[in-house]
């Protein structure tokens, strides 16, 4: 017992020292590396945090870019940065799970120290507003009697959009054709041009398309304020909940107290009502998965995505 007590006291002392050292953290400019090109959702949601971060800490958050191979170039280099808390990097799920599973990208999922996930964009099944499909039931009915005839565009292969399409096919018991496009913009153009039946997008990109499109269902837990009339998949009896999660990671050499400090900082931004309002107006769903809950969250996701990729037959 005495030993345990000593450890506890030691722990408290360490924590006290750490928090004293952290009282003025961050004390200079922080670099926020986005492993994608500027202009995407990762960039946009990083920039949304800028002014809140400055207000909170008095320091600047400088966004820089290290794009390539769908984010893999940045993540493969994450641990080369100094672990002093002044470099953080954006992370996206399912990317950081599916890329290493599919192989050859130069990093493993475990190499990445995720410290906080602050929002997600739920999958959205979308048709254009002139489409014959008014409801998800209509679409499933036609899809089940015509296997493979309905085509759905999405951004890239083995991407969040592709996984959503695969999961939907399994859950709804239908077969549809997925048409990978080189990005979200070409997929949306193919959708509006009527070249395909529909598209797997996410709520944020649907928000930008306005009434040109009809979202048949979204993969959020409950309906969101921007689309009050759009049902969730769960409401319609299809257990599809998920999307692209975006968060922040630090290099492995970053000490635990700095990891927690960052998680707290981002949580403080992502619980600010003004920030939440801004994000929701753009179709983003704010969530707060903190550092201490990260392992449990990640192992669930790894399980899900591994199963999906196995069923798709793309894992060796």
């Amino acid at each position: 017992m005495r030993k345990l007590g000593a450890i506890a006291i030691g722990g408290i002392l360490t924590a006290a020292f750490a928090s004293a050292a952290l009282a003025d953290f961050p004390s200079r400019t922080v670099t926020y590396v986005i492993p994608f090109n500027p202009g995407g959702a990762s960039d946009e949601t990083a920039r949304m945090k800028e002014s809140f971060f400055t207000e909170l800490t008095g320091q600047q958050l400088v966004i820089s870019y290290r794009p390539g191979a769908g984010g893999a170039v940045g993540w493969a280099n994450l641990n080369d940065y100094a672990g002093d808390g002044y470099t953080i990097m954006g992370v996206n799920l399912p990317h950081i799970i599916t890329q290493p599973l599919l192989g050859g990208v130069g990093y493993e999922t475990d190499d990445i120290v995720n410290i906080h996930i602050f929002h997600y964009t739920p999958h959205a099944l979308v048709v254009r507003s002139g489409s014959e499909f008014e409801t998800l039931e209509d679409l499933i009915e036609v899809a089940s009697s015509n296997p493979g005839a309905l085509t759905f565009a999405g951004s890239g292969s083995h991407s969040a959009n592709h996984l959503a399409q695969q999961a939907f096919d399994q859950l709804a018991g239908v077969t549809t054709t997925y048409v990978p496009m080189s990005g979200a913009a070409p997929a949306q153009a193919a959708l509006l041009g009527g070249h395909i039946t529909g598209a797997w997008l996410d709520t944020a990109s649907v928000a930008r398309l306005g009434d040109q499109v009809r979202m048949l269902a979204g993969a959020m837990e409950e309906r969101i304020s921007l689309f009050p009339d759009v049902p969730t998949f769960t409401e319609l009896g299809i257990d599809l909940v998920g999307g692209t999660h975006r968060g922040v990671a630090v290099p492995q050499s970053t000490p635990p107290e700095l990891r927690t400090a960052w998680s707290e900082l981002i949580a403080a931004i992502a619980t600010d009502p003004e920030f939440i309002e801004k994000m929701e107006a753009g179709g983003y769903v704010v969530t707060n998965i903190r550092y201490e809950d990260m392992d449990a969250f990640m192992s669930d996701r790894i399980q899900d995505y591994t199963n999906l990729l196995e069923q798709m037959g793309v894992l060796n």
Partner: protein
Amino acid sequence: MEILAYLAAALTFENLLYALVGVVLGTAIGALPGLTATMALAVLVPFTFTMAPASAMIALGAIYTGALYGGAYSAILINTPGTPSAIATTFDGFPLTRKGEGSFAVSLACVSSVAGGLIGGLLLLMLAPPLATLALAFGPVEYFWIALLGLTLISAISEGNVLKGLIGGCIGLLLSMVGAAVMGGDLRFTFGTPHLVGGVEMISALIGLYCIPILIDLVAEPERGLFTGKRTTHVPLRRTLKASWDGKVNLLRSGAIGTLVGALPGAGGSIASLVAYSEVRRSSRQPEKFGKGAPEGLQATESANSATVGGGFIPTLVLGIPGTPPDAVILAAVMVQGVRTGPELFSSHADIAYTFIFGLLIATIFMFPVGLVLGRWAYNIVADLPKALLVPTVAFMCVIGSFAIHNNINDVRMMVVLGVFGWLMSRLGFGPSPIVLGLILGPIAEQGLVQGFLIGGASGNVLGMFFGRPISLVIILLILLALAYPLLFRRSRRGNYDASE
């Protein structure tokens, strides 16, 4: 007359200042190889956060316009496209410089860019909704055919040695396959190294293949200078304006092509200028002049790539789909300001949309004086620097430029490797342009082909998918014309000889 009120809103002192500063900064950044319009925008975006939304968009639009034009400087003066959309500008721009006409070429590029920019901007102002509808009629199959149309340029730019041109094109197509495939996600030709998963970086390839061989040649041959002709001492303004007036049909047509291709999400400036170049060459009475310093070629490419600015904003503003990568940055910047873009922009924020379009037109007009002055300056630097300084300076810029793309040393390595490869190829008589055409157009053709098969297969009519759609048929006709034209042309000229004998 609400529209005049929007014009007045664009004409405030602040907005004019933003437009002017934006054009100057954009031109300067775009002139450096490797620093693209997208990067220029991303770096300067934070400065716009404190501005009103319409002013922010004007500043960003001005930077974008300037950066595309700035890319022409390095293309014309040192044969290195500063941005991918300036590739075709090297075809005739650099031969003009070689002849000692660099100053004329830079001024001509300026006037052509202003013309193209105005055409794109005016079409955006007046015809945005119908042009957006037209752009949407282009599906995956049409993208495939457009990429093929671009590839037919290989036969045009390698006249006299079509076989080597075709081999170069095939090398480019092979290089374009390196990395993770968009369709299917397979890793191709990566040889197990993660450095190749991202594929061959376009800017590294441009700098390496175009610039490095020239630098090596300059160093290897002590007698050789960048120019053969005399250095001009004044801006040949009158000559430039006369050439522009004479080429007005070309400027208009290329501007229209640039606007339409720019409005196709995912196609972008590089293809617009290639298609415009191919068209002006095909319709010329003297196609053999092209590639050897034909002013018409330069006019076509610069008019077309500047028109993609206005064109790209058509889907961006009307549909909410960014037409080009820089548009995506501008969209995101405006979103951060709390303005919802997309179809609602014109109805609920018409003031912002129209003020922005007028701002873009004003920035384009500013480009005329700014471009002439900066162009003159750039020409003087390149012309006055002794070779012993010019070569290391350009080499340094090549390294910085390829590093700046992604802050990644691997892009520099790729630039150097491709540079040495390009030099060896040029010794064997292979030019860089067919390789680069293959590299750019390969992925677009491949994706369009596979998407066409998937969609056609789902409806059970693959052939009809590729050959049964009106726009496809028009593009196929253009491809056939481009391919058959040299044959027909040769025959008719032989006919003339017969008549004169």
